């Protein structure tokens, strides 16, 4: 394995965050998670101040690569956290694999392309976010379990798929089709909304007229912020069971400025972060988060980068070294208690194993996010598909 800045005095960690462009909202929360982690660690690793250098990846693969390059080649960082989306992450992964060669901890990259394509996944990369192959079957399973929790007559074996018309949405569709087939159901139709679309009325009509009773899919925060209020105004959740993966809508309300008036009735989701989880680390995470000047609530996106930073600190503290090899071997198989509950970086493919649940957001009265958990899904991580 290659270099890494083992020799320098203080620990240097680089982050590529989407601070502008379509994923800026995710990037902002990722960054906030890092700030919380700095507070949490008192700014120190190995008893001396560590340096956190954040570069803007502009929500774009090419800018992300450039940012990573600057971090590795000019700043000589010991590890990189980020960037956000799969597309951006893939470009950085390829760069790390070929040239960069430092530990690379990704925040929300979830596409199959990033996680399973042997050209992309590599020995340097670690993933804390569940992959789409995680999300789709769990969501499908939850849909099958939903009739036990909803007092409505509907057929969980037929779903309509909704997402945005780009890689994430296109990939998600295939996976949902696959997992629906596995449970003997089907995807009866799909709506892929153009990027940058602000008026969703036609698509809502399409969804309303779909054959299926259940609507599912993956949404970015931006898309969810468009879909939810507009669908509510058309009364869509009264006609269809709305169940989305990837923390929408459960996390959505926490991490956006969705007003209270946007009703949550009829919206369901699967997620791995329960804000109500009563553990030391989650309580501290939440209180540090709330001290920051943010109108938002603690959420999984901030939690992800928070935990990546913690994991790095733990590994460096344990081995006393910032050498690339030492960090990677430390991370492999690392188990710890996170804001998501118990979690582990699997040795075979560097994917995090964590537990899921299905439920819904309920209207809250304070700043705490209330989540009603219907079902728990531990051990849903699929077999390793990428050998490093």
């Amino acid at each position: 394995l290659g270099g890494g800045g083992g020799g320098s005095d203080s620990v240097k960690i680089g982050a590529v965050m989407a601070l502008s462009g379509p994923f800026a909202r995710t990037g902002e929360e990722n960054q906030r998670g890092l700030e919380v982690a700095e507070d949490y660690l008192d700014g120190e690793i190995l008893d001396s101040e560590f340096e956190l250098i954040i570069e803007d990846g502009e929500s774009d693969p090419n800018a992300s690569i450039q940012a990573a390059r600057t971090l590795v080649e000019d700043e000589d960082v010991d590890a990189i956290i980020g960037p956000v989306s799969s597309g951006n992450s893939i470009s950085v992964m390829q760069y790390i694999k070929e040239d960069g060669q430092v530990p690379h901890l990704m925040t929300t990259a979830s596409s199959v392309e990033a996680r399973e394509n042997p050209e992309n996944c590599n020995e340097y990369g670690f993933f804390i976010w569940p992959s789409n192959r995680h999300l789709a079957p769990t969501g499908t399973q939850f849909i099958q379990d939903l009739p036990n929790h909803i007092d409505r007559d509907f057929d969980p074996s037929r779903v309509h798929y909704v997402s945005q018309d780009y890689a994430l949405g296109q990939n998600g569709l295939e996976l949902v089709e696959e997992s629906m087939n596995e449970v003997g159901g089907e995807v009866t139709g799909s709506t892929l909304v153009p990027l940058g679309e602000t008026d969703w009325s036609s698509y809502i009509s399409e969804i309303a007229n779909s054959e299926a009773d259940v609507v599912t899919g993956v949404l970015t925060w931006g898309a969810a912020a468009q879909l939810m209020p507009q669908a509510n105004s058309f009364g869509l959740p009264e006609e269809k069971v709305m169940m989305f993966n990837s923390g929408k809508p459960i996390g959505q309300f926490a991490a956006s400025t969705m007003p209270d008036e946007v009703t949550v009735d009829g919206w369901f989701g699967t997620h791995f972060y329960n804000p109500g989880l009563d553990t030391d680390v989650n309580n501290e995470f939440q209180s540090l988060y709330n001290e920051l000047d943010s109108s938002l609530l603690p959420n999984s996106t901030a939690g992800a980068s928070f935990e990546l930073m913690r994991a790095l600190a733990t590994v460096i503290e344990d081995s006393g070294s910032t050498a690339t090899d030492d960090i990677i071997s430390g991370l492999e198989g690392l188990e710890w208690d996170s804001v998501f509950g118990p979690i582990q970086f699997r040795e075979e493919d560097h994917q995090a194993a964590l537990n899921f649940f299905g439920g819904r957001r309920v209207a809250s009265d304070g700043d705490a996010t209330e989540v009603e958990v219907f079902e728990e899904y531990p051990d849903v991580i699929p077999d390793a598909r990428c050998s490093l």
Partner: protein
Amino acid sequence: MLEIPLITTENFITYALNGLSRGMIIFLVASGLSLIFGLIGLINFAHGAMLALGGYGTYVVIQATGNFWLGLVISVVLVAVLGLALERKVLYWIYDEPLLGFLSTFGIGLVIEEALAVYFGSRSYTVPSPLPESVQVLGVSYPSYRLFVILVGAVVALGIGLILVKTRLGLEIHATANMQPTAEILGVDTARIYTITFVLGTALAALAGALTAPITSMYPTIGLDYITMAFLVIIVGGMGSFKGSFVVSMIVGQIIAFGWLVLSPTYVRILVFAAAMVFILYKPRGFFGKAEVHE
């Protein structure tokens, strides 16, 4: 592969209303642009930023008072005042240079959007709908806020259309736009006409922003997603033809509302842009524009 599904009357009405409300929103954005562009000849690229300001202004007032209508009025007035200041202090002397006009409004728009991004962050804000209920129209249930938007669009269209066609102000706007020094010696206070037109156009952008806020969510560059379409609409409708931008907005709204039945939505959008481009080529003066003028 194209497949044309059968649709029921109810669906048809819902789709048509979708198209109508979408068309009206496009029109609200386009109407201000059309005034400023069609009549002053200025490609006002800051229009999108004004729209965003209208939306954010409404959001801020709602945060403070909880009242949407107050937010709407205040933000439209404030943006109009900003438009007044811009026109009086900055833009008035570049009207006869379209390229410079485009560039300066491009710069001003950039500054406003980036300032919004720095201040509010790039996350989006959702504004609650002031009319959350649905009502029955023509046998289907439809969100009343969208019907309200349709109504406002229609009133704006009619009101401004009448001003342009029936009033002396309309004639003076035309005269000033085409040959300002001549309008002056015919007794037209052209400085006032420029100001009125620009401020009115800007206020319409803010109105569009405030009205769309409860439908969509606000983010700093939201304007860019609207104005490309709005520009095409006013060109296809015919430079300076208010009627044209109205009719074309309605057509585009309906195309998108029904287009997904036969084609994937992204391609519908691409198709609309492409069709508009072809149209510009074959009829640069647009649907309702007048024929080429010789010297």
